[in-house]
């Protein structure tokens, strides 16, 4: 019993640091890069993904014996898409500002590789409780990564912290937390303007997103190495949720990653 409890805890915590989906497994990069122009946006995206992830993990785990193996990926996609639609409706209705700033990336949670990846790698094989915890842990890890990116980009790019908080809290009514709507460092420290220190708008642009992610990745790599871990890498099949339906073409998938296999080998495998 004690051992089981310990492993439950392990399944929960692994997603937060050790196997952080964004920083360690390099999954869901599109969403991470696109929406993290501010902390509030990143947090909103993280929460949406976490909800979808936990719900779909639970349902897929419940249905894992009912879903035939051959059509499991389409089945998973239907489950995930249903929950994404639900979340989309809720966000549209209650947090319209978030819906606006996430834009197309809200429906695109469907193809977020974290979710399909967890369904394929974990929920389709494990019990309900463990799967839910796994989803929750991975979701928190994703949220944390998004928040970290959001804080850095918002601070450097706009000189603010947590702006737009009220739009996220509008679900709970007006003026929650005393109407706190983030800090504008240019208002708190007026001398910044006198020094003609401008925020680096570039950090809010796409290129700043890539740059921040790269630097964060370098830092996490360094930390992981110090702990004796491995560098984060896009390891073709390992992180690709479609690896399984790539069929027997695993060798091809690998060769695509390395792009080193001779063409004849590819053809032989395709036959």
């Amino acid at each position, binding site marked *: 019993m004690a051992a089981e409890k310990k492993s439950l805890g392990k399944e929960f915590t692994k997603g937060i640091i050790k196997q952080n989906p964004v920083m360690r497994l*390099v999954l869901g*990069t*599109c969403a991470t*890069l*696109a929406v993290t122009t501010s902390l509030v946006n990143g947090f909103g995206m993280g929460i949406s993904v976490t909800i979808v992830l936990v719900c779909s993990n639970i349902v897929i785990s419940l249905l894992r014996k009912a879903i035939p193996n051959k059509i499991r*990926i*389409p089945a998973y*996609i*239907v489950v995930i*898409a*249903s929950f*994404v*639609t639900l979340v*989309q*409706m809720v966000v549209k209705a209650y947090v319209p500002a978030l819906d606006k700033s996430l834009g*197309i990336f809200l*429906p*695109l949670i*469907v*193809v*977020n*590789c974290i979710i*399909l990846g967890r369904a394929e790698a974990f929920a389709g094989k494990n019990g309900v409780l463990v799967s839910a915890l796994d989803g929750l842990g991975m979701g928190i890890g994703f949220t944390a990564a998004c928040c970290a990116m959001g804080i850095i980009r918002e601070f450097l790019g706009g000189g603010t912290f947590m702006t737009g908080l009220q739009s996220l809290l509008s679900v709970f009514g007006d003026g929650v937390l005393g109407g706190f709507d983030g800090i504008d460092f240019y208002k708190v420290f007026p001398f910044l303007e006198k020094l003609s220190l401008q925020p680096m708008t*570039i950090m809010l*642009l*796409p*290129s*700043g*997103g*890539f*740059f921040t*992610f*790269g*630097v964060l*990745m*370098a830092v996490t*790599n*360094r930390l992981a190495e110090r702990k004796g871990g491995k*560098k*984060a*890498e*896009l390891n*073709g099949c390992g992180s*690709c*949720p*479609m690896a399984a*339906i*790539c*069929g027997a*073409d695993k060798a*091809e*998938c690998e060769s*695509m*990653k*390395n*792009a*080193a296999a001779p063409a004849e080998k*590819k*053809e032989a495998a*395709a036959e």
Partner: protein
Amino acid sequence: MKFYFALLLMGLLTQNFVLAKFLGICPFLGVSKKLDTSAGMSAAVVLVMVLATAVTWPINEFLLEKYDLAYLQTIVFILVIAALVQLIEIVMKKYLKPLYKALGIYLPLITTNCAVLGVVILNVDNGYNYPQSLVNSFAAGLGFGLAMIMFAGVRGRIEHNDIPKFLEGLPITLIAAALVSLSFLGFTGIIEGMGLM
């Protein structure tokens, strides 16, 4: 005609799917190590994007919108794309052997590529009509290809250089992507400047 040209320029340069919209980052980082693989992947993406738009636009217009089912868009689109990719694969395997050999291995990966679902949803959101949607998808696919092929060149250079150890691997790739994306900022305003919009 002007508008179609504007769409083409937007997809290629100012609104590049990878470098400006962050769609399709996974294949951009994963498959761009070598020129021929990135070209193959891009060709497959262009093909699937255009075909997916060709199928989903009528479905949305004549089925979902007509019967007030627009909330089913996400589910319907992703399923249609998944089925379509399977179908393309089967047809290709049977009748277009050489093409299948060139593009086949990339097709399953495209199902969960957010660029494909993204372009389909964007077409609907922007209210493009049928030919406009098709051109927009084609342009988006070309833009994806341009970014992939350019970046394959950049990565080739990176691999033959001395890189600080802590930046080796993904970090330097991402920083290089940042610079490429920065260079694309130079195209901002080109469409307005040419009086196309």
